[in-house]
């Protein structure tokens, strides 16, 4: 059995988390941090750790969908509701129905009188909550039937100082916003080969996915036998699928750093960012973070596009470029002045990190081939597809160790 409780931020010091699980005696504590809040689960059994954390994540996402945000204020303002929710989604430590859509039909922010809460209505809810499609109500109606598909790819790159790719992979999420009436049956197709065995490489524009995982609603058995992705979607927004690709990754941005130490008091940086996609597209919100040694006093930056600034508190030069067109190349050159200190602190030489977004581009080359919607009433539906490739905090280029600390 475990309990979930929200501990107000003051309890645990935030920097010193060495493990998300602590066991004292026979009692184990699992925690997940959201903003300044800790969601803590406690157990005295050999609990399924993956389940506990998944449940914590789910609790946070349910709370988000109920209150918009999850912070101390939101928790305090809705504490009664939270008790109600926890009572519903977790019984004696066993997670129960946690589909927001269904929960919202009977646990609401409006108070309900038991007298006028019709028993028939409740029966409908209970059937829904325990049924095979617990994620969808049956009575959804829209004037205009629409479905939006967002393919969002996050590129993880780790490039060595010499420019060799240590690892490059793509975490893809296919988010769907379904505004469809009734109980629609959807079929979804991608240009993937879905050969997880990695036998034959290449061949057409097909993309090879290393692995994919599906939302609860996707019929896995059907996927297993015929490789079709078919499902009855929940109403509103959900993550239909998650995938991972490692082969033939098209890196949208190339970063060529050069860092040279001039004597002991100066460091020169030349960082070039090149785009490698069609010139019809563009990368937006590009932020390049270039770490500087800890004894940097000032940095003089020259850039032709965007703005670059030295942020002493974080020991980085932050270079922001609102937009880079495809095929373009931009360069920053900067000179940093160092104080000569006798005892140099250990400096971890963090990598250069780039954040960016490229619309209508997928680093894996994945495209949505079709989305078909079948429903009894046979209505027309409009589908929209959007692609986005982005990086935030995971696109890292290591810096050549020219100013590695030397023996004194």
């Amino acid at each position, binding site marked *: 059995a475990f309990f979930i409780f929200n501990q107000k931020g003051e309890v645990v010091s935030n920097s010193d988390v060495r493990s998300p699980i602590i066991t004292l005696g026979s009692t184990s504590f699992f925690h997940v941090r959201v903003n300044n809040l800790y969601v803590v689960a406690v157990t005295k059994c050999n609990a399924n750790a993956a389940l506990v954390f998944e449940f914590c994540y789910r609790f946070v996402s349910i709370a988000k969908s109920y209150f918009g945000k999850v912070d101390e204020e939101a928790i305090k303002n*809705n504490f009664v509701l939270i008790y109600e929710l926890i009572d519903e989604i977790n019984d004696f430590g066993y997670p129960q129905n946690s589909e927001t859509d269904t929960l919202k039909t009977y646990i609401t922010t409006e108070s309900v009188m038991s007298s006028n809460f019709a028993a028939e209505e409740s029966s409908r809810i209970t059937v829904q909550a325990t049924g095979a499609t617990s994620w969808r109500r049956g009575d959804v109606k829209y004037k205009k039937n629409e479905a939006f598909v967002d393919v969002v790819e996050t590129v993880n790159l780790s490039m060595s100082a010499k420019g060799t790719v240590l690892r490059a992979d793509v975490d893809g999420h296919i988010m769907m916003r379904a505004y469809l009436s009734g109980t629609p049956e959807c079929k979804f197709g991608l240009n993937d080969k879905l050969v997880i065995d990695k036998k034959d490489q290449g061949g057409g524009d097909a993309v090879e996915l290393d692995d994919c995982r599906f939302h609860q609603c996707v019929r896995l058995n059907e996927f297993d036998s015929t490789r079709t992705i078919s499902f009855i979607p929940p109403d509103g927004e959900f993550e239909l699928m998650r995938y991972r690709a490692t082969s033939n990754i098209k890196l949208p941005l190339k970063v060529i750093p050069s860092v040279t130490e001039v004597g002991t008091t100066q460091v020169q940086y030349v960082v070039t960012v090149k785009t490698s996609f069609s010139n019809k597209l563009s990368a937006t919100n590009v932020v390049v973070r270039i770490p500087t040694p800890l004894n940097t006093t000032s940095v003089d930056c020259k850039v032709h596009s965007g703005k670059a600034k030295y942020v002493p508190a974080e020991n980085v030069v932050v270079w922001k470029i609102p937009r880079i067109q495809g095929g373009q190349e931009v360069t920053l050159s900067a000179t940093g002045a160092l104080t000569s200190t006798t005892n140099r602190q250990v400096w971890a030489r963090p990598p250069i990190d780039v954040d960016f977004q490229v619309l209508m581009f997928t680093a894996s080359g994945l495209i949505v081939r079709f989305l078909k919607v079948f429903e009894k009433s046979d209505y027309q539906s409009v589908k929209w597809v959007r692609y986005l490739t982005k990086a935030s905090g995971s696109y890292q280029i290591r810096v050549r160790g020219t100013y590695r600390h030397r023996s004194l």
Partner: protein
Amino acid sequence: MSGQGSQDAKFFQRGKIQEFRAELQAAESKDKKFTKRKTVLKKIVANITMGNDMSPLFSDVIQCLSIPSLEIKKMVYLFLVCYGRSKADHISRVIPSFLEDCEDRNPLVRALAIRTMSYIPTSLVVEEIADPLRHALKDKDPYVRKTAAICVAKLYTADPRKAERSGFVEMLRDLLLDTNATVVANAVAALSEIGDRQDGVIFRLNLTVANKLLAALGESSEWGQIYILDSLLRYVPDRHEDAELMAERIIVQMQHANSAVVLTTIKVLLYLMNYMENRRLMDYICKKMGPPLVTLLSSGPEVQYVALRNILLIIQRRPQVLKNDVKVFFCKYNDPIYVKLAKLEIMYRLARDENAREVLAELQEYASEVDIDFVRKAVRSIGRLAIKVSTAADDCIKVLLELIENKVTYVVQEAVIVIKDVFRRYPGKYEGIIPALCENLDALDEPESKAAMIWIVGQYANRIDNADELMDDLTYTFLDEPTEVQLALLTAAVKLFIYKAQSDTSKALVHKVLKWATEEIDNPDLRDRGFMYWRLLAINPAVAGEIVLAEKPAITTDADRMDRGALDQLLLHTGTLGSIYHKNPETFIRGATGKALTDSPALNAASRQVLVPVSRNNMLPPTAIRIPGPGPRDPRKTVPPPPMPPSDGAPVPSAAPVAEASDLLLDTSPSQEGGDDGDADGDGDGDEDYSQAPASAGGADPYANLDGAFGNYMADEPRPQQSGPLF
């Protein structure tokens, strides 16, 4: 009304019991929509949340039960769950209202009532709940049934015998065949909970029921799938085909978005593989297992951590899984520290001739980061890599020397510790670097590294010109040193004397140290060893030389893996706490029951050979015995061993002193070397060529344990803290 923008935070103020009581009474008049009482109740609940005792309000609060508002009812129920147990004598007053709600037309209310009742395990409630619970288990509404199923587990916790007598366990068993998948899943969960109790009924599945459960899998919620999959471990296949067929049916569940479903599926697959024969299917399963495991690494950091700790176990048992994927375990700069440490361990495990260069480059990179634990572990891993992959040893040594040159204290200390083991692994190959090490003698201030350096000085005293001077300096603080260092000094002084018997310094030195050890030291280990050396030297210095400087068995990393029986057992706990700590749950959780593979005609021979009998209550798998050289130097000695039940104990601890004694005689080095059996580094294709010695041998062989081989290498291993006086 508490709408979207509800502002209930204001209720978080400490209130007085009398005030609340007065407010509740005042609220009774002119409270049409019950908003006043609702407000007071919210204040009370807020106070409960803050940990203030509200139990004196018991009778005032339960009066609100008559109010026909679901929101108020839920708050009162919450109050009852909190204080029902402490106010057991008053609980009789709310029973009628509970019973009434159990008959309500609204299924949500019926379920709420039975659920709340079962949370209050007083004897009266346990008595009164029997009838309504029996009805609820047969309710026409599946929501009530699924709630009632869990209630049985709660009732069983409160009073197992009563629950059995009332026939609830049988009723649960019937629910396994319910038409509604959610009900089935909860019944499975409840039965598993009961079956996991030491005093619980035994819960086993036969093939028919297991197949029925599998059929319900498709319609279950993600959590339900976990309960059902988990229960499959209670099914023991009698024929290879049964295991194979079942594996084929669940393999696709690895594609589920919920990581707990994925890990539980993997657990079942690993389990079933013990009962399979079809080599190709097993290879196929292993191949399919890799990608989902890697995908888990794009989940939240906590789940990543769980996945990594499990991967570490899985790749030891099934080395072909993830064999070529070492790159995905390279650390990202911004990974949380616990993820990094876990990745480092896996990188080392996956290192082979083919990828050693890449791995080494990464380790070198990590060695210049800031987190001390991480850096230390990286440095140690470089040394371990040198020991494991002989083709990479040259490069590793080069890197270690570079690191030593940087003169970062903790890096130097770590490097010295591993280099000592490298010397033992490749005798006569790298001794040329000893002068470089000696330069850093002063930087060593930790017992382990100091002891390692002293070992090096003593062992190679004949190659170090000023060895006697160095030793003289080192022994200067002899009496203030920790035992670990004293022991090392003692042996090193003897070695020095044997090498340089004609040197006056070494003669004086050994005399001084022996005198200290035998006359000034209280530690029996040290004293005994002092006497032993003394007599040895007095009786026959030549024999003493043969003994003290005897050729040491070479260090290998073959014994690095946990033994197979222990692994098989631990893998039954995939995804759980036990898999995080790499300990069987019964060793660190009070009242937990052990698990072990069950023998059946289908169990493959290799697994049977290392079968751990459940009856022994397997406190510690043989490999978990820590024999890190002479006892008192164990840096972990501050952590008391996990509590052992009196029933066990006899065979296990007795092994330890024996091992220590033999180690004492041979050498003072904390190193242990492994048996030479086992294939090189797990590049084979699994259990067939996994020719590890059987489990029993692991227990008897003092060297079959790597924990010892690397001193306190496991210092940063996550482990439950047993010393907590809290519980």
